[in-house]
Protein backbone atom coordinates (compact mmCIF):
# COMPACT_ATOMS: atom_id res chain seq x y z
CA UNK A 1 0.00 0.00 0.00
CA UNK A 2 1.12 3.45 -0.79
CA UNK A 3 2.20 5.63 2.07
CA UNK A 4 0.03 8.64 2.51
CA UNK A 5 2.10 11.65 3.22
CA UNK A 6 0.91 13.52 6.27
CA UNK A 7 3.20 16.39 5.53
CA UNK A 8 1.21 19.43 4.50
CA UNK A 9 2.25 21.09 1.31
CA UNK A 10 2.75 24.79 1.57
CA UNK A 11 -0.29 26.55 0.16
CA UNK A 12 0.40 28.63 -2.92
CA UNK A 13 -2.63 30.69 -3.85
CA UNK A 14 -3.91 31.29 -7.33
CA UNK A 15 -4.11 34.99 -7.90
CA UNK A 16 -5.75 36.66 -10.87
CA UNK A 17 -4.75 40.24 -11.55
CA UNK A 18 -6.69 42.26 -14.11
CA UNK A 19 -4.36 45.01 -15.29
CA UNK A 20 -5.25 47.86 -17.59
CA UNK A 21 -3.14 48.13 -20.68
CA UNK A 22 -2.07 51.73 -20.25
CA UNK A 23 -0.97 52.01 -16.65
CA UNK A 24 -0.88 48.88 -14.56
CA UNK A 25 0.24 46.45 -17.24
CA UNK A 26 3.00 48.87 -18.14
CA UNK A 27 3.77 49.12 -14.43
CA UNK A 28 4.11 45.34 -14.31
CA UNK A 29 6.41 45.56 -17.30
CA UNK A 30 8.52 48.14 -15.57
CA UNK A 31 8.70 45.97 -12.46
CA UNK A 32 10.02 43.19 -14.68
CA UNK A 33 12.58 45.28 -16.49
CA UNK A 34 13.71 46.82 -13.21
CA UNK A 35 14.24 43.27 -11.93
CA UNK A 36 11.77 43.74 -9.13
CA UNK A 37 10.10 40.47 -8.36
CA UNK A 38 6.49 39.67 -7.82
CA UNK A 39 5.18 36.18 -7.10
CA UNK A 40 4.92 33.82 -10.05
CA UNK A 41 1.44 32.69 -8.99
CA UNK A 42 -0.03 36.05 -9.97
CA UNK A 43 -1.71 35.50 -13.32
CA UNK A 44 -2.00 38.79 -15.11
CA UNK A 45 -4.86 39.34 -17.51
CA UNK A 46 -4.41 42.41 -19.63
CA UNK A 47 -7.56 44.45 -20.29
CA UNK A 48 -7.90 47.65 -22.29
CA UNK A 49 -9.21 49.53 -19.25
CA UNK A 50 -10.08 48.49 -15.71
CA UNK A 51 -13.70 49.27 -16.53
CA UNK A 52 -13.62 46.48 -19.11
CA UNK A 53 -13.78 44.07 -16.21
CA UNK A 54 -17.33 42.86 -16.09
CA UNK A 55 -18.23 41.64 -12.59
CA UNK A 56 -18.76 38.19 -14.07
CA UNK A 57 -15.04 38.08 -14.94
CA UNK A 58 -14.25 38.37 -11.26
CA UNK A 59 -16.84 35.77 -10.34
CA UNK A 60 -15.69 33.40 -13.03
CA UNK A 61 -12.09 33.71 -11.88
CA UNK A 62 -13.13 32.72 -8.37
CA UNK A 63 -15.34 29.93 -9.56
CA UNK A 64 -12.50 28.51 -11.65
CA UNK A 65 -10.30 28.31 -8.63
CA UNK A 66 -8.77 31.73 -8.02
CA UNK A 67 -8.06 32.37 -4.35
CA UNK A 68 -7.83 36.11 -4.77
CA UNK A 69 -8.72 38.63 -7.48
CA UNK A 70 -7.15 42.05 -7.81
CA UNK A 71 -7.97 44.80 -10.26
CA UNK A 72 -5.34 47.36 -11.21
CA UNK A 73 -5.90 50.48 -13.24
CA UNK A 74 -4.63 54.00 -13.75
CA UNK A 75 -4.97 56.36 -10.79
CA UNK A 76 -8.33 58.14 -10.75
CA UNK A 77 -8.02 61.15 -12.99
CA UNK A 78 -5.33 59.51 -15.14
CA UNK A 79 -7.45 57.03 -17.07
CA UNK A 80 -6.38 56.67 -20.69
CA UNK A 81 -10.06 56.81 -21.57
CA UNK A 82 -10.57 59.70 -19.15
CA UNK A 83 -13.31 58.28 -16.92
CA UNK A 84 -13.19 54.47 -17.16
CA UNK A 85 -11.68 53.84 -13.77
CA UNK A 86 -14.27 55.99 -12.02
CA UNK A 87 -16.90 53.49 -13.09
CA UNK A 88 -14.67 50.62 -12.04
CA UNK A 89 -14.35 52.17 -8.62
CA UNK A 90 -18.10 52.24 -8.03
CA UNK A 91 -18.75 48.84 -9.51
CA UNK A 92 -16.08 47.07 -7.57
CA UNK A 93 -16.84 48.87 -4.32
CA UNK A 94 -20.39 47.56 -4.60
CA UNK A 95 -19.48 44.11 -5.86
CA UNK A 96 -16.84 43.46 -3.23
CA UNK A 97 -19.02 44.76 -0.44
CA UNK A 98 -21.79 42.48 -1.74
CA UNK A 99 -19.52 39.43 -1.89
CA UNK A 100 -18.52 40.08 1.68
CA UNK A 101 -22.21 40.28 2.58
CA UNK A 102 -22.53 36.77 1.18
CA UNK A 103 -19.73 35.64 3.41
CA UNK A 104 -16.75 35.83 1.06
CA UNK A 105 -13.67 37.02 2.95
CA UNK A 106 -13.13 40.67 2.13
CA UNK A 107 -9.34 40.19 1.85
CA UNK A 108 -9.77 38.11 -1.30
CA UNK A 109 -10.75 41.07 -3.42
CA UNK A 110 -8.86 44.27 -3.98
CA UNK A 111 -8.60 47.31 -6.25
CA UNK A 112 -5.30 49.18 -6.55
CA UNK A 113 -4.25 52.02 -8.79
CA UNK A 114 -0.80 51.54 -10.32
CA UNK A 115 0.67 53.89 -12.92
CA UNK A 116 3.10 52.99 -15.69
CA UNK A 117 5.90 54.61 -13.70
CA UNK A 118 5.20 52.63 -10.54
CA UNK A 119 7.08 49.39 -11.09
CA UNK A 120 8.14 49.24 -7.47
CA UNK A 121 4.59 49.83 -6.32
CA UNK A 122 3.30 47.08 -8.58
CA UNK A 123 5.71 44.64 -7.08
CA UNK A 124 4.91 45.73 -3.52
CA UNK A 125 1.14 45.54 -4.11
CA UNK A 126 1.36 42.04 -5.55
CA UNK A 127 3.63 40.76 -2.82
CA UNK A 128 1.33 42.12 -0.19
CA UNK A 129 -1.81 40.73 -1.82
CA UNK A 130 -0.26 37.28 -2.20
CA UNK A 131 0.80 37.34 1.42
CA UNK A 132 -2.70 38.26 2.55
CA UNK A 133 -4.40 35.59 0.47
CA UNK A 134 -1.86 32.95 1.48
CA UNK A 135 -2.72 33.63 5.09
CA UNK A 136 -6.41 33.17 4.30
CA UNK A 137 -5.93 29.81 2.65
CA UNK A 138 -7.86 28.23 -0.17
CA UNK A 139 -11.02 29.83 -1.52
CA UNK A 140 -13.77 27.31 -1.25
CA UNK A 141 -16.73 29.55 -0.82
CA UNK A 142 -17.29 31.02 -4.21
CA UNK A 143 -16.88 27.70 -5.91
CA UNK A 144 -19.60 26.06 -3.90
CA UNK A 145 -22.01 28.74 -2.85
CA UNK A 146 -24.90 26.62 -4.03
CA UNK A 147 -23.63 23.12 -3.38
CA UNK A 148 -25.78 21.46 -0.79
CA UNK A 149 -24.36 20.40 2.58
CA UNK A 150 -22.64 17.06 2.50
CA UNK A 151 -22.05 17.00 -1.23
Amino acid at each position, binding site marked *: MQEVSTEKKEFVPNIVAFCCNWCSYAGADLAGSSRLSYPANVKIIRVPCSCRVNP*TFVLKAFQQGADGVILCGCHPGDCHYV*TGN*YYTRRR*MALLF*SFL*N*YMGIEKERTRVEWVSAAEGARFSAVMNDFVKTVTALGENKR*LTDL*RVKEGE
Partner: protein
Amino acid sequence: MKDVEMKMLERAKQLLESGEVARVIGWKKGEFFYDPTPASFETVDELKDFVYDWFCGANLSKYLIQMSKKEGKTAVFLKPCDTYSFNQLVKEHRIKRENVYVIAVECLAKLNIEAIKEKTDGIVKSVDVEDKDVKVVTTNGEYTLYKPEVVLSKCAVCNKTHQAKDEEIILHERPERDVNRFEEVEKLEAMTEDERFAFWKGQLSKCIRCNACRNVCPACSCVKCVFDNPHSGIAAKANDSEFEEQLFHVIRAFHVAGRCTDCGECSRVCPQHIPLHLLNRKFIKDIDGLYGEFQAGETDEGKTPLTSYTEGDIEPKDVFNGEAK
Protein backbone atom coordinates in the same frame (compact mmCIF):
# COMPACT_ATOMS: atom_id res chain seq x y z
CA MET B 1 -61.55 46.86 -1.17
CA LYS B 2 -64.85 45.86 -2.82
CA ASP B 3 -65.77 49.52 -3.38
CA VAL B 4 -62.46 50.13 -5.10
CA GLU B 5 -62.90 47.06 -7.23
CA MET B 6 -66.32 48.27 -8.35
CA LYS B 7 -64.95 51.66 -9.35
CA MET B 8 -62.07 50.10 -11.25
CA LEU B 9 -64.37 47.74 -13.09
CA GLU B 10 -66.68 50.59 -14.01
CA ARG B 11 -63.78 52.65 -15.33
CA ALA B 12 -62.37 49.72 -17.28
CA LYS B 13 -65.76 49.22 -18.94
CA GLN B 14 -65.99 52.89 -19.89
CA LEU B 15 -62.52 52.96 -21.37
CA LEU B 16 -63.11 49.85 -23.46
CA GLU B 17 -66.60 50.82 -24.55
CA SER B 18 -65.59 54.29 -25.64
CA GLY B 19 -62.66 52.89 -27.54
CA GLU B 20 -60.25 55.16 -25.69
CA VAL B 21 -58.07 52.16 -25.02
CA ALA B 22 -57.69 48.88 -26.85
CA ARG B 23 -57.06 46.85 -23.73
CA VAL B 24 -56.96 47.07 -19.98
CA ILE B 25 -54.39 45.29 -17.90
CA GLY B 26 -55.52 44.17 -14.49
CA TRP B 27 -56.00 41.00 -12.49
CA LYS B 28 -58.43 38.19 -13.10
CA LYS B 29 -59.79 35.33 -11.01
CA GLY B 30 -57.32 32.52 -10.53
CA GLU B 31 -57.95 28.90 -9.80
CA PHE B 32 -58.41 29.70 -6.11
CA PHE B 33 -59.75 32.91 -4.64
CA TYR B 34 -56.29 33.75 -3.33
CA ASP B 35 -54.38 33.54 -6.57
CA PRO B 36 -55.63 36.23 -8.95
CA THR B 37 -53.38 36.48 -12.01
CA PRO B 38 -52.40 39.38 -14.25
CA ALA B 39 -54.56 39.57 -17.36
CA SER B 40 -55.27 41.67 -20.37
CA PHE B 41 -58.95 42.45 -21.06
CA GLU B 42 -59.91 43.49 -24.55
CA THR B 43 -63.69 43.39 -24.36
CA VAL B 44 -66.31 44.31 -21.79
CA ASP B 45 -67.38 40.69 -21.82
CA GLU B 46 -63.96 39.53 -20.67
CA LEU B 47 -64.18 41.85 -17.69
CA LYS B 48 -66.54 39.45 -15.92
CA ASP B 49 -63.44 37.77 -14.47
CA PHE B 50 -61.87 41.05 -13.33
CA VAL B 51 -60.82 41.21 -9.69
CA TYR B 52 -59.00 43.56 -7.38
CA ASP B 53 -58.61 42.26 -3.87
CA TRP B 54 -56.22 41.59 -1.02
CA PHE B 55 -54.26 39.12 -3.07
CA CYS B 56 -53.45 41.27 -6.10
CA GLY B 57 -49.79 41.57 -5.20
CA ALA B 58 -48.50 40.93 -8.71
CA ASN B 59 -46.75 43.88 -10.35
CA LEU B 60 -48.29 44.63 -13.75
CA SER B 61 -45.62 46.96 -15.13
CA LYS B 62 -43.53 44.37 -16.88
CA TYR B 63 -46.44 43.32 -19.10
CA LEU B 64 -46.39 46.78 -20.61
CA ILE B 65 -43.13 46.08 -22.39
CA GLN B 66 -45.10 44.04 -24.89
CA MET B 67 -48.50 45.62 -24.52
CA SER B 68 -47.31 49.18 -25.09
CA LYS B 69 -45.96 48.15 -28.46
CA LYS B 70 -49.28 46.83 -29.66
CA GLU B 71 -51.72 48.87 -31.63
CA GLY B 72 -53.93 51.19 -29.61
CA LYS B 73 -53.60 52.44 -26.09
CA THR B 74 -53.24 50.20 -23.09
CA ALA B 75 -54.75 51.16 -19.76
CA VAL B 76 -53.15 49.68 -16.70
CA PHE B 77 -53.90 49.65 -12.98
CA LEU B 78 -50.79 50.35 -10.95
CA LYS B 79 -50.27 50.14 -7.21
CA PRO B 80 -47.75 52.53 -5.63
CA CYS B 81 -44.81 50.10 -5.84
CA ASP B 82 -45.69 49.17 -9.42
CA THR B 83 -45.28 52.76 -10.56
CA TYR B 84 -41.59 52.70 -9.67
CA SER B 85 -41.03 49.70 -11.90
CA PHE B 86 -43.07 51.44 -14.55
CA ASN B 87 -40.91 54.57 -14.44
CA GLN B 88 -37.75 52.54 -14.49
CA LEU B 89 -38.91 50.67 -17.59
CA VAL B 90 -39.89 53.92 -19.30
CA LYS B 91 -36.46 55.30 -18.48
CA GLU B 92 -34.82 52.24 -20.02
CA HIS B 93 -36.89 52.74 -23.17
CA ARG B 94 -38.67 49.45 -22.66
CA ILE B 95 -42.18 50.90 -22.36
CA LYS B 96 -43.68 53.36 -24.81
CA ARG B 97 -45.10 55.85 -22.34
CA GLU B 98 -47.35 57.58 -24.88
CA ASN B 99 -49.20 54.32 -25.48
CA VAL B 100 -50.04 53.73 -21.85
CA TYR B 101 -52.81 55.16 -19.70
CA VAL B 102 -51.90 54.75 -16.05
CA ILE B 103 -54.65 54.45 -13.48
CA ALA B 104 -53.16 54.69 -10.02
CA VAL B 105 -55.02 52.45 -7.58
CA GLU B 106 -54.91 52.30 -3.85
CA CYS B 107 -53.18 49.54 -2.00
CA LEU B 108 -53.49 48.91 1.69
CA ALA B 109 -50.88 46.16 1.64
CA LYS B 110 -51.47 42.78 0.04
CA LEU B 111 -51.78 39.48 1.83
CA ASN B 112 -49.42 36.56 1.71
CA ILE B 113 -51.43 33.37 1.43
CA GLU B 114 -48.43 31.24 2.43
CA ALA B 115 -48.20 33.08 5.74
CA ILE B 116 -51.93 32.68 6.28
CA LYS B 117 -51.76 28.95 5.59
CA GLU B 118 -48.87 28.61 8.00
CA LYS B 119 -50.78 30.26 10.81
CA THR B 120 -53.99 28.29 10.33
CA ASP B 121 -55.07 24.67 10.16
CA GLY B 122 -57.10 23.10 7.40
CA ILE B 123 -57.90 24.29 3.92
CA VAL B 124 -58.45 28.03 3.61
CA LYS B 125 -62.01 28.76 2.49
CA SER B 126 -62.27 32.51 2.81
CA VAL B 127 -60.31 35.53 3.93
CA ASP B 128 -61.76 38.87 4.99
CA VAL B 129 -60.01 41.98 6.14
CA GLU B 130 -61.36 44.40 8.71
CA ASP B 131 -58.87 47.09 9.50
CA LYS B 132 -55.95 45.25 11.13
CA ASP B 133 -57.84 41.98 11.55
CA VAL B 134 -57.67 39.26 8.96
CA LYS B 135 -60.55 36.85 9.40
CA VAL B 136 -59.81 33.45 7.97
CA VAL B 137 -62.23 30.57 7.65
CA THR B 138 -60.78 27.14 7.03
CA THR B 139 -62.19 23.65 7.00
CA ASN B 140 -61.01 23.39 10.60
CA GLY B 141 -62.42 26.58 12.03
CA GLU B 142 -62.19 30.34 12.19
CA TYR B 143 -59.14 32.43 12.90
CA THR B 144 -58.39 36.09 13.41
CA LEU B 145 -54.87 37.04 12.38
CA TYR B 146 -52.99 40.30 12.85
CA LYS B 147 -52.70 41.82 9.40
CA PRO B 148 -49.11 43.17 9.58
CA GLU B 149 -47.99 39.59 10.22
CA VAL B 150 -49.54 38.12 7.11
CA VAL B 151 -48.84 40.74 4.44
CA LEU B 152 -46.29 40.19 1.69
CA SER B 153 -42.76 40.92 2.83
CA LYS B 154 -42.56 43.81 0.38
CA CYS B 155 -45.70 45.39 1.85
CA ALA B 156 -44.50 45.08 5.42
CA VAL B 157 -41.83 47.74 4.86
CA CYS B 158 -43.53 49.77 2.12
CA ASN B 159 -44.06 53.49 2.34
CA LYS B 160 -44.28 54.10 -1.38
CA THR B 161 -46.60 56.52 -3.11
CA HIS B 162 -47.63 56.71 -6.75
CA GLN B 163 -44.88 58.14 -8.96
CA ALA B 164 -46.76 57.94 -12.23
CA LYS B 165 -50.44 58.41 -12.97
CA ASP B 166 -52.84 59.73 -15.55
CA GLU B 167 -55.77 59.40 -13.17
CA GLU B 168 -56.38 57.76 -9.84
CA ILE B 169 -58.87 55.60 -8.03
CA ILE B 170 -58.09 56.01 -4.38
CA LEU B 171 -60.83 55.73 -1.80
CA HIS B 172 -58.75 54.97 1.28
CA GLU B 173 -55.29 56.32 2.03
CA ARG B 174 -52.72 54.10 3.65
CA PRO B 175 -51.31 56.08 6.57
CA GLU B 176 -47.59 56.74 6.44
CA ARG B 177 -45.73 54.48 8.78
CA ASP B 178 -42.35 54.36 10.38
CA VAL B 179 -40.59 51.46 8.68
CA ASN B 180 -36.97 50.49 8.23
CA ARG B 181 -36.63 48.31 5.19
CA PHE B 182 -32.95 47.67 5.92
CA GLU B 183 -33.53 45.99 9.25
CA GLU B 184 -32.96 42.47 7.95
CA VAL B 185 -29.94 43.53 5.93
CA GLU B 186 -28.46 45.11 9.04
CA LYS B 187 -28.96 41.89 10.94
CA LEU B 188 -26.95 40.02 8.33
CA GLU B 189 -24.26 42.68 8.28
CA ALA B 190 -23.84 42.29 12.01
CA MET B 191 -23.05 38.58 11.62
CA THR B 192 -19.56 37.20 11.04
CA GLU B 193 -18.43 36.24 7.55
CA ASP B 194 -18.80 32.59 8.47
CA GLU B 195 -22.34 33.04 9.70
CA ARG B 196 -23.32 35.00 6.63
CA PHE B 197 -21.87 32.40 4.35
CA ALA B 198 -23.72 29.65 6.19
CA PHE B 199 -26.93 31.65 5.92
CA TRP B 200 -26.67 32.26 2.18
CA LYS B 201 -25.44 28.81 1.36
CA GLY B 202 -28.39 27.39 3.25
CA GLN B 203 -30.78 29.64 1.37
CA LEU B 204 -29.33 29.45 -2.11
CA SER B 205 -28.84 25.72 -2.16
CA LYS B 206 -32.63 25.43 -1.97
CA CYS B 207 -32.89 27.09 -5.39
CA ILE B 208 -34.26 24.85 -8.12
CA ARG B 209 -33.39 27.31 -10.89
CA CYS B 210 -36.95 27.64 -12.03
CA ASN B 211 -36.08 31.18 -13.21
CA ALA B 212 -39.29 32.59 -11.76
CA CYS B 213 -37.39 35.39 -10.00
CA ARG B 214 -35.79 36.47 -13.23
CA ASN B 215 -38.96 36.20 -15.25
CA VAL B 216 -41.01 38.29 -12.88
CA CYS B 217 -38.39 40.97 -12.25
CA PRO B 218 -39.19 44.25 -14.02
CA ALA B 219 -35.49 45.12 -14.00
CA CYS B 220 -34.71 41.86 -15.81
CA SER B 221 -36.02 42.79 -19.20
CA CYS B 222 -33.18 41.93 -21.58
CA VAL B 223 -34.40 40.38 -24.80
CA LYS B 224 -31.60 37.86 -24.74
CA CYS B 225 -30.51 36.79 -21.28
CA VAL B 226 -27.12 35.25 -20.52
CA PHE B 227 -28.90 32.54 -18.61
CA ASP B 228 -30.66 31.43 -21.77
CA ASN B 229 -27.91 31.91 -24.28
CA PRO B 230 -25.85 28.76 -24.75
CA HIS B 231 -23.08 30.83 -26.35
CA SER B 232 -22.71 33.20 -23.44
CA GLY B 233 -20.41 30.79 -21.64
CA ILE B 234 -22.44 30.97 -18.46
CA ALA B 235 -25.68 29.26 -19.39
CA ALA B 236 -26.16 25.64 -18.49
CA LYS B 237 -29.62 24.51 -17.49
CA ALA B 238 -29.84 22.28 -14.49
CA ASN B 239 -26.14 21.70 -14.14
CA ASP B 240 -24.98 22.12 -10.62
CA SER B 241 -21.30 22.51 -11.28
CA GLU B 242 -21.45 25.19 -13.89
CA PHE B 243 -20.65 28.80 -13.34
CA GLU B 244 -24.09 30.20 -13.87
CA GLU B 245 -25.64 27.59 -11.63
CA GLN B 246 -23.51 28.54 -8.70
CA LEU B 247 -23.42 32.24 -9.18
CA PHE B 248 -26.84 32.84 -10.68
CA HIS B 249 -28.00 34.94 -7.74
CA VAL B 250 -24.88 37.04 -7.53
CA ILE B 251 -24.89 37.76 -11.26
CA ARG B 252 -28.57 38.61 -11.27
CA ALA B 253 -28.33 40.79 -8.20
CA PHE B 254 -25.49 42.81 -9.68
CA HIS B 255 -27.18 43.05 -13.03
CA VAL B 256 -30.15 44.84 -11.54
CA ALA B 257 -28.15 46.86 -8.99
CA GLY B 258 -29.02 50.53 -9.25
CA ARG B 259 -32.12 49.64 -11.27
CA CYS B 260 -33.93 47.43 -8.77
CA THR B 261 -36.84 49.38 -7.36
CA ASP B 262 -37.25 47.03 -4.40
CA CYS B 263 -40.62 45.91 -5.72
CA GLY B 264 -40.18 42.61 -3.90
CA GLU B 265 -41.57 40.48 -6.70
CA CYS B 266 -38.59 38.12 -6.69
CA SER B 267 -39.21 37.02 -3.12
CA ARG B 268 -42.94 36.82 -3.67
CA VAL B 269 -42.70 34.34 -6.53
CA CYS B 270 -39.82 32.15 -5.35
CA PRO B 271 -41.30 28.69 -4.79
CA GLN B 272 -38.45 27.90 -2.42
CA HIS B 273 -39.08 30.95 -0.24
CA ILE B 274 -35.57 32.30 -0.64
CA PRO B 275 -35.46 35.89 0.67
CA LEU B 276 -34.14 37.27 -2.60
CA HIS B 277 -35.01 40.86 -1.77
CA LEU B 278 -32.27 40.78 0.86
CA LEU B 279 -29.72 40.50 -1.93
CA ASN B 280 -30.81 43.61 -3.74
CA ARG B 281 -31.57 45.56 -0.64
CA LYS B 282 -27.90 45.27 0.24
CA PHE B 283 -27.02 47.01 -3.01
CA ILE B 284 -29.65 49.65 -2.35
CA LYS B 285 -28.35 50.21 1.16
CA ASP B 286 -24.74 50.45 -0.01
CA ILE B 287 -25.66 52.85 -2.82
CA ASP B 288 -27.60 55.04 -0.40
CA GLY B 289 -24.76 55.04 2.08
CA LEU B 290 -21.88 55.50 -0.32
CA TYR B 291 -23.25 57.64 -3.13
CA GLY B 292 -26.24 59.38 -1.63
CA GLU B 293 -29.84 58.28 -1.38
CA PHE B 294 -31.25 56.94 -4.56
CA GLN B 295 -34.57 55.33 -5.29
CA ALA B 296 -34.80 53.66 -8.69
CA GLY B 297 -38.05 54.44 -10.46
CA GLU B 298 -38.79 57.65 -8.62
CA THR B 299 -38.55 59.42 -11.95
CA ASP B 300 -38.35 58.23 -15.51
CA GLU B 301 -35.18 60.14 -16.36
CA GLY B 302 -31.72 60.81 -15.01
CA LYS B 303 -28.63 58.77 -14.37
CA THR B 304 -28.35 55.77 -12.11
CA PRO B 305 -25.60 55.37 -9.50
CA LEU B 306 -23.76 52.80 -11.58
CA THR B 307 -23.75 54.90 -14.72
CA SER B 308 -22.34 57.94 -12.98
CA TYR B 309 -19.50 58.82 -10.61
CA THR B 310 -17.89 61.62 -8.69
CA GLU B 311 -14.18 62.26 -8.47
CA GLY B 312 -14.22 61.91 -4.72
CA ASP B 313 -15.96 58.52 -4.61
CA ILE B 314 -14.89 56.18 -1.85
CA GLU B 315 -12.15 53.64 -2.64
CA PRO B 316 -13.35 50.03 -2.63
CA LYS B 317 -10.96 49.12 0.16
CA ASP B 318 -12.41 51.79 2.43
CA VAL B 319 -15.89 50.38 2.11
CA PHE B 320 -14.91 47.62 4.48
CA ASN B 321 -12.85 49.77 6.80
CA GLY B 322 -15.81 51.89 7.65
CA GLU B 323 -17.52 48.72 8.90
CA ALA B 324 -20.77 47.61 7.37
CA LYS B 325 -22.00 50.59 5.46
